[in-house]
């Protein structure tokens, strides 16, 4: 079974702290994604990566950065956490293959509260 593991399920951080959310997948997927989920807004794409060291901005990249040094690991970084970044963060991965139809596999989510 495909496994996408997010390192922290629940985090509480202070305003201004630097926050790292880690994600690891074990299926040799090329694509990895970070989404943010808020009530009534659904999932919004923050960043995605289609290869090691490659990244593309999603719809809401402001206030976030990412790192992909190894194929299996994709990190989301909040340089200076703010209260409006309190949310559930979902990591996901997939094979590449536009037009072929690829399934995205999700982690269980990380609940971040910024106080």
């Amino acid at each position, binding site marked *: 079974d495909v496994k996408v593991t997010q390192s922290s399920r629940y985090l509480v951080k202070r305003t201004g702290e630097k926050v790292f959310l880690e994600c690891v997948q074990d299926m040799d997927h090329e694509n990895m*994604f970070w989404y943010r989920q808020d009530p009534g807004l*659904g999932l919004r794409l923050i960043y995605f990566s289609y290869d090691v060291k490659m990244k593309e901005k999603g719809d809401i990249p402001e206030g976030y950065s990412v790192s992909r040094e190894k194929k299996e690991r994709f990190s989301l970084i909040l340089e200076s956490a703010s209260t409006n970044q309190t949310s559930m963060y979902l990591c996901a991965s997939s094979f590449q293959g*536009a*037009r072929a139809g690829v*399934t995205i*596999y999700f982690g269980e989510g990380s609940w971040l509260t910024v106080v």
Partner: protein
Amino acid sequence: SQQGEEDPQALSIQEGENATMNCSYKTSINNLQWYRQNSGRGLVHLILIRSNEREKHSGRLRVTLDTSKKSSSLLITASRAADTASYFCATELYNNNDMRFGAGTRLTVKP
């Protein structure tokens, strides 16, 4: 920007009834997928329909796609209390690898 929009936002039915959820999208797509999310958990893939397909079945799930109207529907037949979850449509845009999700439909199936 959000690509898919689900309708209704919330749906409450009795066990045994059918549940229909709709999804509309804005731009040309390669395929459309439906995902399920139990409360507080990650999303799980349910079914994929390609842009050249019109209907697809998987167990109690039936998905239709109308590319001329840029819309899809997910039908769950003979619903069960365990079907209670949020359901999301996701679109893979033409010439893109990234996926866009809608805001979801919250389905409650009462026993």
